[in-house]
């Protein structure tokens, strides 16, 4: 009996995870990629997010997992990656993480500016900016994802915009 339930739960978890992967993988990976500035890292982190979603559904197949949950998990993964890397960069032993980290492969000028600007933002700022622009959330929704207030999100977006503005000026002038 237990074994049967186990198989059932696994099958449901798989089906639900696959549906989530199908619907959100591109959006989520692009969002994370902008945040961390590296496609390979974004793929790794996104994959981790879907795996943890899967594990969660396996434990409780009826659990509600929506886009907000995925974005929250991806945002946390992205922020902790950026923080980790920041610490690593301060150490002299950072050879392994250097080099491939800030690749921008788009041709469009707007895109290059954006990535250069995002690289200068604090992780919380770029998360707020990307959630409201890239992912299209309102400040209240982004606040729920980031675990903060809607005012704080607005303020972070504004601070991020200030940096964007400076970078874009540098590029055009």
């Amino acid at each position, binding site marked *: 009996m237990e074994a049967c339930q186990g198989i059932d739960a696994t099958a449901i978890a*798989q089906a639900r*995870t*696959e549906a989530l*992967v199908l619907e959100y*993988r*591109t959006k989520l*990976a*692009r969002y994370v*990629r902008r945040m961390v500035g590296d*496609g390979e890292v*974004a*793929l*790794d982190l*996104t*994959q981790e997010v*879907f*795996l943890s979603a*899967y594990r969660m559904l396996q434990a409780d197949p009826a659990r509600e997992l929506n886009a907000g949950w995925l974005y929250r998990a991806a945002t946390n993964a992205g922020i902790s990656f950026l923080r980790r890397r920041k610490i690593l960069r301060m150490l002299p032993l950072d050879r392994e993480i250097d080099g491939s980290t800030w690749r921008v*492969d*788009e041709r*469009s000028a*707007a*895109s290059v*500016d*954006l990535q250069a600007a995002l690289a200068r933002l604090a992780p919380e700022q770029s998360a707020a*900016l990307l959630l*409201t*622009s*890239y992912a299209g959330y*309102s*400040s209240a929704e982004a606040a729920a994802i980031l675990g903060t207030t809607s*005012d704080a*999100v*607005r*303020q*972070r*977006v*504004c*601070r991020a*915009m*200030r940096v*964007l*503005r400076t970078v*874009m000026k540098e590029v055009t002038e």
Partner: protein
Amino acid sequence: MTTGQSDCTLAERLAGAIAIGEARDDERVAYRAHLAGCPRCVHALGGEREIERIMSAVVRARDDERWEPERRARLATRRMRRNTWTLATALAAAVALAIGLPAEKPPLNAPPQRALSQHDAGAIAALNTQTVPRREGRAESLSVDAATTFSTAFDIAVDQRGTPRRCTITKSSGFRLVDRSVCRAAMHAHYSPPVQR
């Protein structure tokens, strides 16, 4: 008209709301009023139109986005589907590469200890190859066209997260270029992490 620190904090929030595109009319009016009396914010934040222009550049970049997470996203699904029989040890997983062989036919007796299922291996797109794990163990072949066949054997060391760390050629095809391409392709794949026993 003088403005204090808290007014400027409020202005930042209003500017953020304008950027997000959710500012109400009264908020826009309040923002304009603040700018009228605060040259510092005019300089630091810019007017409504400028804020919207910068934000629209971000949105345009999103709309122009062509990058696809195809390769690894597919693996994410596959790996989950198959995680009941993933890799037994952290080391030594052999993959087979074959160019030009039909990949549709699944291998008979697919051994469960292989790190890379046929579908996973199919995602090794780096060489634009079709991948068919041929036998369990290490033998595989790489045929460039119908007439030429190379055989290369290699070991892949996989870390806890399934990321390949090292590729060692255990039997050379005799062509260093082929060996290198095989390793490069193998290093581009993502593997099932080792199962803890």
